[in-house]
């Protein structure tokens, strides 16, 4: 969740009264978060930019309807998620987004790989921009539906129930995919942060 502006309420009121500068100030505070949501869900920069533009414009048009029951950002990010989902659906990526076959043991359970504790915390192990790039890369290892669920729940901090409602999915489906996504991302990050680190950071791989 982003840092909120101290004068958010007054900016919202001004924007609702027609002050376009106030709206742009609000938008600028959250634009990179909205872009990241768009990029995580759609998987490409062009769509992420479209998501940012379209959701900004929708929010601008609908600002009078914002009732202040949630934070402005929560309202804005819901608009952005719906725009991003529209793009996935248009490309039929949502419907086709089946859960990867889990690796199962003899008793049917998921078997985690890459069991290795991490050395330094990721924030200490690499530069901030390297970490941002790595996270943006590894989340794309998930299928579209799973990375959307992970983004809403673990990055944007929606509840399980809100995530299910926003995506039109059942709570068990959200829980199952969230667990698999967390385990899969854990494995991917362990390749970088495991004590016996075998992979270089993405920027130094070039």
């Amino acid at each position, binding site marked *: 969740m982003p840092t909120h502006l101290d004068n958010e309420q007054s900016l919202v009121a001004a924007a609702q009264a027609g002050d376009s500068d106030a709206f742009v100030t609000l938008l600028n505070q959250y*634009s990179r978060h909205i872009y990241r949501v768009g990029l995580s869900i759609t998987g490409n920069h062009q769509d992420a930019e479209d998501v940012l533009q379209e959701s900004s414009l929708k929010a601008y048009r609908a600002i009078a309807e914002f009732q202040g029951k949630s934070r402005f950002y929560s309202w804005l990010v819901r608009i952005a998620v719906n725009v991003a989902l529209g793009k996935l659906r248009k490309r039929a990526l949502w419907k086709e987004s089946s859960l990867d076959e889990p690796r199962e043991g003899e008793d049917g359970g998921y078997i985690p790989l890459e069991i290795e504790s991490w050395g330094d915390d990721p924030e200490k192990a690499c530069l901030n921009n390297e970490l941002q790039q790595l996270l943006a890369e590894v989340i794309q290892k998930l299928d579209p539906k799973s990375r959307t669920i992970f983004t809403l729940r673990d990055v944007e901090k929606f509840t399980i129930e809100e995530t299910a409602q926003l995506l039109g999915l059942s709570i068990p489906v959200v829980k199952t995919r969230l667990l698999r996504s967390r385990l899969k991302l854990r494995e991917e990050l362990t390749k970088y942060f495991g004590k016996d680190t075998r992979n270089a950071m993405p920027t130094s791989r070039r």
Partner: protein
Amino acid sequence: MRCRQVVDKISEYIDGELDPELVRELERHLQHCEDCRVVVDTTRKTVEVFCNTEPAPLPNDVRERLNQMFRHSFRKGEPN
């Protein structure tokens, strides 16, 4: 509790949503299972790093096009 059940319960455990009785069982298991301790710990760290890392700044050209879009919309008055 077996390793497989620990893996199944990781999400609820790290979110603090697991039944207290199951928390006790799971933590008893963790006391003697190094592999599960590692998986639980690194899963928790995975969620934390995604949650705590700020997004990259907006690329300059993306920001410029966004501003252009707004200037265009504001010039037209209330967009359609």
